[in-house]
Structure formats: C-alpha cells, structure tokens
C-alpha cells in the first residue's frame, strides 16, 4: 500500500508499482481511495499482487509506503506481523494529534486507541507499538537521498525534485521485496514515455533508492515478489478505461458529459483517443462537455435520433438531473445509453467513495411508466464487454439502457488476459434506409406485434416523422385519444417481454460456486470479486455455498431467479447499501426474501477478508441477520 497527501504522487507510484509487477508476469488488483480534495488530504492505493488471478482486495497490508505521518497513523493496524512500514526519517517526532488533516472524529478514535494500548503521542511511539507486533519499520532519509540524486543530476535546488519521493519509495519497496529492478525501471520509463528527461531523472532516483535499501535494510524483510514467465498478453486497467474502450467497440460515436466524479475520467480518456482506427476508413468519437447533465442527457438523445450511437456518463447527482430527459427518451423510444457510476450518496454524499444505493433510483427515475433496461457489471472485464453490448440492447429494443456501475469498479485496476473483442457483433435492430422507404408511408411508432417499430434516423429521405414528449399517434403527432393512449402504453411496455425473452442467460445471471447448495449468495456489481474469493476459501474449508450474480437487474429475470432461490435454507444478500435494495426487489418480484444481509455503506468497497468472515459467521450460525461491514480507511 502506498499512501500520502493528495497531489504527492501516490497514484503515479502505485501505477508504476503495478505495471512493474505486471511486467514480471504477476496479477495485480489495485484499489484507489481519495478524498474530494485537490491537494493535501489523505489518499492511498492498495495493491494486491499474486502469480494467480486476483479479484478483490483484502484487509492485510504487507508493506506500507507512507509518504507522510498521517498514512502511517491511519493504516498502522492493517500492517501484518513481519510486514513493513517505509517512512521518512524526519517524521518521527510528529505528534499524531497535531496532524492538521486528521478530522476530529478520527482524532477521538486515536485518543481512545492511545489510552487503550498505552501508546505515546508521537509517530515514533506509534511505530514502536507496531514494532512490538513484529512490524519492521524502515526509516528512509528522503532529503539526504534527494540531495545525493540532485548532485548526480546536476540539480541544485532539492525543491525541484521533491516530487520524486514517490519513486524513491518504489525503489525502496522493490529492494525490500528483492524484485527485479529492471522491471521497475521499465515501468518508470513507460510511465514517462512522453518525457524522456523526466524518465531519466526518475530512473536515477529509483536506482539510488534501491541501492540505499539493499545496503541498509539487508535481510530484515522476508516477503518476496518473484517474477514468473507468462506466455499471454495482459492488460492492467481501470473500470473507467474498460468502459471507454467498450463503448468504442460498441460503436459509440457521440459521448456527452458534465464533469463529475467518478465518471469524468472515462470521457477524458475517450476524448484523448477520439480518432479511431477501424481497418477501413478512420472514424471518430465526438466527446462533448455540456453545461449540465440536463444538456448531457438530452443532447445524447438528439444524437441518437440522428443515427449516432450515443451515450452519456454520470454518477448519482448528475443522474438526478437527467430524470426528465430519461422519461422523454422512454416515451420517444430513443436508443439512449447512460453509464451510471454510483458513488456514496445521498446528496453530495461521499463523492469519491463507493456505494450501491442507487439501484432503485435507476429503476424508477423519470415520471410515468416506460421501459428501460438496467445492466449491472460486476468486474472490470464485464465493464468492457457490457459497455459494447448496451448499444445493441438500446437499438434493438429502442429504449434507454442504464449501464449501472460503481466507484469501486471505476477506479480499481486489475490485470486481465488481453480482451478478445474481435467477435463482438454490432446489432442495430430494425433500422430502415431511404431505399426501404421508397414509395411507402412511414410511421415511426407503428403498432407491431413485439412493440418494436422499425426505426428511421433523422435526415433519411422518404421517412419524415415526428417525435413528441406528449403522447402521440403512430406517426408521432400529439394524441390524447384514450384508445391510442392505451395501445401506445402497451406497445412500449411490451418491449420488455421481448427483452426478457431475448437477452442471453449469461447477461441476466451468472452462477458461481455450488448453486445446488442450500446456501446461496445473491449480489450485483462490485462485491462480486470479494464474494467469489470468499466462496473459494469457504469451499476449501468444506462449506458448500453458491453465488448468483444478477446482471440484468431490470427487467429482473424473475423466473430464473425464483427457480434458483426456491427451497434454499440461507439466502444471503450482499450489497453496498443500507437497505439491501436488490434483496428487496427480489422479494417483491419473486416472493422469496433473503434471510441474511451483508451490507456496507462506509463508502469503501468490500474486501475478501470481511466478506469471508461474514459469510462464515452466517454459515456457522454465529451471525445476525444483518451483518454490517466496516473495513477500510
């Protein structure tokens, strides 16, 4: 884990570290936590590394690279016995309660901790406490190292290179792990590939720190990272990046957005790469930053009517503003895609933290009854493929599709074998061209058996039609006639039956573990990884338990869910919210209620450690019906 004040290079350090591990054939899972703040408040990156695939985070920290005293204080109890803390030598006399960025409610906890464990007031006292628990503390004289590096580089002013403290910690960390320094060097060069001079400076710093640690810390630290040979190409990427790539694959050519965490990174990544190679003529995606989310959703609808595959990306507060536009799109049968990254809510909530409390809102936002599809991805790979699939769904069924994600997936990074996207097929549904229309009377909202009326994009010759937010007749003009109204409502709503019938099973539900067992977990979204890892652990201990991941959360595949849950002894609902929203929806629609809930609403994603503990407690009858998880600083 690397942590420090926001703006001190924590992310860069973690990315370099993760990359270097990736180059050595290791799998990495990274969790990024940060405050809603530009500079100064605590942020950290927790990387989990293994030769085997990793799906989630755990509670334990083997090595903590603390850029500042606050990081050591906040995470000291997460470091395991025989683990290590890397800390600057100048921090030792810092009085913990004087750290200005620690909030009062946390200081109160610290006071209790100091009293209970009889720990003194300075960081040094705290580190001594850690040492008693067999934690190694590695004091690094950053300023001294920087002045030596400055000499090597011919730079007088140390203030010009203090930014490189993050790279020094990487050097020290890799030396402690006895990891191949060439891979670290490669990762540094890769990160700064567009600035060769900066890359050189950082490589010098990296090696200097590596040498220092090798010399001074000898064999104190026993944990090792070893590279392994791999014969496949892999990616290390965030959910935001996966979504952006998936959208491009799915044919998204207009993306609108208003800046909001944690969605905006995706749009920026798209804009940076907006010219697309296609094997034939180049194409491009237009990314528009609008004045607000109202403009974002409605201009995306406009673009979709004109025939472009169009999407907008947002999180809760933005989606709130989109509600009216969503209703319009539902009424006018617009193939609109909304990528919805949930974060800690309500209101501004925890703007940079995780949450899954918007499922019911995504289902019900917008006045009136109209069909929509909500597809929830559960990991970064699903983020990629689903981001492409949602455009097919939107156009085939001519309705808004909400791709429901969360901050955990947006900002976590994970290693995957390279995505095999060549088999993705664009399905535009019933789309008529000028030729199809020749000599015919076209009706945009023609009543059909399935409810889907063949679509014509704006500007097509022979296809003049109208849209109205009002109820309308088949040609699109305003109509308030009762009979037409009834037929129109039914036409729109029955498209959902088609969705339920046609969406492939693996896009509705996914089964893991022993689903024939009497114990079953139901969940959706980012808790997936921690659940799967917990199930594996429980299986090794002889417990029988299965997991159904609900992907199509709306329309809920009621019959399939019912069939799976019927007769189970323990149905355990796992979600990052207070009320167990999916559990409630399942109860409503199948009549089967989960009898246990594992819930978390601290804004930090679930770890395998805590999910495993909660599930085990439930299976051994040691838990209450409602387990609330708390881990994470």
């Amino acid at each position, binding site marked *: 884990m690397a942590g420090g004040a926001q703006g001190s290079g924590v992310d860069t350090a973690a990315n370099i570290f993760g990359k270097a591990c990736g*180059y050595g054939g290791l799998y990495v899972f990274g969790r990024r936590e940060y405050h809603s703040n530009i500079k100064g408040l605590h942020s950290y990156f927790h990387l989990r590394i293994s030769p085997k695939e990793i799906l989630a985070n755990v509670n334990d920290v083997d090595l903590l690279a603390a850029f500042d005293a606050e990081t050591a204080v906040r995470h000291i109890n997460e470091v395991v016995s025989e683990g290590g803390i890397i800390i600057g030598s100048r921090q030792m006399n810092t009085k913990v309660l004087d750290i200005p960025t620690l909030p009062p409610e946390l200081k109160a906890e610290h006071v209790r901790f100091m009293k209970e464990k009889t720990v003194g007031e300075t960081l040094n006292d705290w580190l001594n406490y850690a040492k008693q628990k067999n934690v190694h503390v590695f004091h690094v004289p950053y300023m001294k190292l920087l002045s030596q590096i400055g000499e090597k580089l011919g730079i007088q002013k140390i203030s010009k290179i203090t930014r490189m403290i993050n790279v020094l910690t990487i050097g020290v960390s890799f030396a402690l792990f006895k990891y191949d320094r060439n891979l670290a060097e490669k990762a540094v060069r890769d990160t700064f590939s567009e600035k060769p001079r900066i890359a050189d400076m950082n490589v010098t710093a990296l090696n200097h720190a590596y040498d220092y640690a090798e010399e001074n810390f000898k064999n104190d630290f026993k944990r090792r990272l070893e590279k392994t040979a*791999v014969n496949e*190409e*892999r*990616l*290390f*990427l965030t959910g935001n*990046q996966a979504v952006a*790539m998936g959208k*491009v*694959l799915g*044919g998204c050519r*207009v993306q609108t957005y208003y800046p909001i965490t944690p969605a905006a990174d995706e749009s920026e990544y798209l804009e940076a790469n*907006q010219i*697309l190679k296609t*094997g034939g*003529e180049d*194409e491009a*995606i*237009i990314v*528009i930053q*609008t*004045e607000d989310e109202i*403009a*974002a959703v*409605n*201009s*995306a*609808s*406009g*673009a*979709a*009517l*004109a*025939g*472009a*595959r*169009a999407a907008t990306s947002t999180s809760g507060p933005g989606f709130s503003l989109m509600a*009216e*536009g969503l209703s*319009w799109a539902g009424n006018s049968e617009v193939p609109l895609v909304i990528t919805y990254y949930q974060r800690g809510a309500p209101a501004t909530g925890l703007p940079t933290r995780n949450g899954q409390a918007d499922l019911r809102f995504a289902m019900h936002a917008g006045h009136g009854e109209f069909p929509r599809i909500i597809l929830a991805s559960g990991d970064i790979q699903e983020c990629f493929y689903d981001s492409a699939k949602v455009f097919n769904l939107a156009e085939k069924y001519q309705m808004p599709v909400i791709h429901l994600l969360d901050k955990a997936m947006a900002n976590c990074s994970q*290693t995957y074998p390279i*995505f095999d*996207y060549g*088999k993705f097929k664009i399905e*535009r549904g019933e789309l008529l061209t000028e030729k199809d229309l020749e000599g015919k009377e076209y009706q945009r909202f023609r009543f059909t058996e399935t409810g889907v009326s063949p679509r014509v*994009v*704006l*500007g097509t*010759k022979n*296809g*003049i*039609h*109208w*849209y*109205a*937010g009002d109820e309308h007749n088949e*040609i699109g*003009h*305003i109509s308030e006639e009762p009979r037409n109204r009834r037929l129109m409502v039914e036409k729109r709503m029955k498209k959902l039956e088609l969705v339920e019938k046609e969406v492939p099973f693996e896009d509705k539900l996914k089964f893991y573990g022993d689903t024939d067992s009497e114990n079953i977990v139901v969940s959706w979204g980012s808790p997936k990884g921690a659940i799967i890892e917990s199930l594996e652990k429980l299986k090794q201990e002889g417990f029988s338990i299965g997991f159904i991941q609900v992907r199509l959360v709306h329309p809920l595949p009621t019959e399939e869910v019912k069939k799976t849950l019927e007769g189970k002894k323990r149905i355990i609902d796992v979600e990052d919210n207070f009320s167990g929203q999916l559990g409630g929806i399942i109860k409503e629609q199948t009549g089967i209620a989960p009898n246990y809930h594992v819930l978390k609403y601290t804004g930090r994603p679930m770890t395998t450690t805590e999910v495993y503990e909660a599930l085990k407690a439930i299976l051994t009858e040691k838990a209450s019906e409602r387990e609330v998880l708390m881990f994470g600083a």
Partner: protein
Amino acid sequence: MGLKPSDFRVPQVYADWCPGCGDFGIMNGLQMAFAELGLEPHQIVMVSGIGCSGKEPHNVKAYGVHTLHGRTLPFAMGIKVANPRLEVLAIGGDGDGLGIGAGHFVNAGRKNLDMTYIIHNNGVYGLTKGQASPTLRLGIQTKALPKPNINEAVNSIGLAIISGFTFAARSYAYDVRHLKETIKKAIQHKGLAFIDCLQPCPTYNNITTKDWYSGEDRKDPTTGKPQSRLYKLEETGFDPNVRDWSEDFQKKIAAMDKAREWGDAIPIGVFYKNELEPTFQERISKRIPFYVDRPPAKQKLGDENGFSKVDLTKFMKGLKTS
C-alpha cells in the same frame, strides 16, 4: 424540384393555436423560407420545446422533434453534432429559452453551432394560462396576472450577443414577409443565429397586442393612419455586419444599444452578424479532418457480417503489461 410553401404543410394535423395567434405567422414564415431556400423536408429538423411554440414542428412538413421544456437547444445540439449536414432549427418560447432554458441559451453561444434558434416572444406563458414570462417588463400587468410583474425583463438580443451568438435579429409574426426573409438570413448565416420573434398572444397578452404593435392607439392626426411602433433597422442604414475583427466590439456595442430600444420605436431586422468566428463544426474539423464527410451518424459500425471493425490497439498500448 422547386417545392412550394404549401408542400411544407401537414394536412393531417389541425393547428390548435388560438384564432389570431402569431404562431400561424411563424409557421407560414418557416414554410415560405424553406421553399425559397430550395430545401427538402427530409433535410430539415425542427426541434421545439414546450408551450404553444412547441407545436410548431407538427405543422411543418420536416423532421420534427418536440422535446422538453427548456431543452430545445441541447437536443438540437446533439442532432447537429451527430449529423452536421442537417439543417437544424430550434424553436421555443420566451419562457422556454430565457427562463427554464436560460443556461442552455448562454452556453449555446459558446459553441456557435451552425443552426438557427427562433424564440416566440409574447411576454406570457400562454399554455399555462398567462403567467409572466422572462420578456415581460417590470410593472406590466397582463390580464391573467393577479399583480403587476415584479421582475424586470431579460433583453434577449443583448443576451444572445454577449453569449456568443454570431447572428442576432428580431422580426414580427404578423410581418410574414419580413419574418421569412429574416429566417432565410438566419439559416444562411454560418454560425449560431438567433431570431427574437415578436408574437402577440391574443388570449393572454392584452398589453403588447397586434394593435399595440401596429399603433392603432396613435393614429396620425392628419392622415388618420396608425403609426406602427416597429421600424426596420435595414431602412435606417444600420449595418450589423462584422467584416473584420477590429470592428467587432463597436458592432456589438451598436447592436446592444439598439437592443435597448422599446416602447414607441422598436427595431426589427438584423442587429449583429459575424461569420469570422469559427463554428463548432469547424472547430471539430480541426481535430478530426474527416468529421463532415463521416460524422457520427454516418459511420459504418460493422463489417458486412456485423462484426465491429474498430481497432483498439491504440487504447490497449498504454495498458499492456507485456
């Protein structure tokens, strides 16, 4: 070829505005302008908001998108960006564009999309029975208001100019010929064009009525003829055209000065016109040279078997760990 205004009629739709409504004049002006410009219905998209003005597209044979209250411009923007070859007109009321949609109005100016925005300006919210709109002046009490208007009016022409619209004009719903010419100029303008169309509401605005504009209350004592309160800028030698950036500021000031006039001498015509400012389309084309040839709406997404043709190598390059 050579369509007539009547070819842009929609016979199956009954235009349900009140008898004598200015919206009929605007409908006629649009149909005439389209015909005279040689446009075909499928080349045009009319986007409207909510209110009586929102029904305008249903009465004109062209693609019609009747949207939400205040959101006319965002929908129009999405359509225009996706397919810049379409002739896009945004149509809205004064409440729609300058009240609930004012944020979009201001921000549309920043993009300078090559399209036209026509506001039906009658000072009232007609469809909800006559409340004060953002263009009703302070202290005026139209007949449905329980008290005189407590808010000052927004100056729509002035707001358009300082927001970045590169064409700002005013016309009058009952001077269809002037309106038609103004619409033609707006459509032909390269950039975002705004028309403030004075459009008396015969039902709810009993102050700025058709008779008031035509000056029925101030007849010439010698001839007995009404003296119109409207005068044409083009007949006064007013030159709104910016031909060089060095004269832009002065032209803006002059236009703003004219925009302040109200009461017994209300200018109609073009206040400001600047084609030097790059349009949004031109700005995108600088980044994406093939934008107009292959805009988002015209891109072929799959090969003959439907497989996506896009190559993600460039995206993946920075993410590979081998």
